[in-house]
């Protein structure tokens, strides 16, 4: 399966989804007006990965900003991961937030309470 690699822009995050390593990364800013357009290919890709995932998948989310429209799309990404986890595969989400950014920590906790996948909250100390 070909990896997805997308360079970040001021409004969209850097994406590295590597099926061979089982490591997926979303990093930067996610504040586009039309977030569905950006995230749909990722969700479709995960739908295919879901059919034959690695034993262990690690997901690193390291966002500086994201808008509410992205928040729904990120939930769609997590729902695919939840399905992989439910099929008895190891899935781990690392949710990074900067030390003073309680809003970003709370956002991670929102997902943790909705999605049945183990989350690790990781504080970035400068």
């Amino acid at each position: 399966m070909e990896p997805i690699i997308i360079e970040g822009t001021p409004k969209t995050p850097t994406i590295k989804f590597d099926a061979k390593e089982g490591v997926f990364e979303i990093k930067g800013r996610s504040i586009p007006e039309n977030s569905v357009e950006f995230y749909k290919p990722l969700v479709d890709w995960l739908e295919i990965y879901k059919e034959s995932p690695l034993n262990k998948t690690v997901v690193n989310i390291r966002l500086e900003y994201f808008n509410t429209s992205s928040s729904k799309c990120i939930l769609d990404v997590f729902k695919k991961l939840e399905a992989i986890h439910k099929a008895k595969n190891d899935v781990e989400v690392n949710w990074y937030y900067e030390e003073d950014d309680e809003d970003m920590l709370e956002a991670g906790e929102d997902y943790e309470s909705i999605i049945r996948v183990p989350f690790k909250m990781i504080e970035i100390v400068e």
Partner: protein
Amino acid sequence: MSFNVEHYFSELANGNNILFYKGNIDSDLINRVLDTVEEKLAAGNEQSKLRKKVYNVLVESLQNLYHHVDKVPDDFEDQTSEKYGILAINKVDGGYKIITGNFIRSDNVDKLEEKIKRINRASHEEITELYKFILNHQRISSKGGGGLGLVDIARKTGNKLEYTFKEYDKKCSFFYLNILVGETN
């Protein structure tokens, strides 16, 4: 004569203005406003926590305009803006005010007002629960909004949403939203 939307806005936005804009709200404009404000916040040496809150709330305010404004009335001076909005950002004691204004069809007023009242009645914990409920249960609308913008603004600022509707003519009203983003602890 119809109600002058800008006069009332100027009263609301009276103060230490760091940005003012009126006209079409498109994607490029949103980028420009975000860049400008980010530079000004950095230059103003604000704490990163406040800077992030202001930036987040500004993104939601602008995208609320982008996704939800209704068409300008036929006799309105600016007929070229497909999505007409007014925006001001003021520096106030201990934070910033973000003020927006846009046309809304009068028959949409009650629904929006009910939504705001529901948010304003809620405690912080209830807002968090409301946010999670909408996140998990509501699909992205045909307009492209997630229905979460105002809830997110109230949650991040910890303040009530101050708002006014002014009737422009029989079919159209103007909606003013006045958001305080302060230093919280």
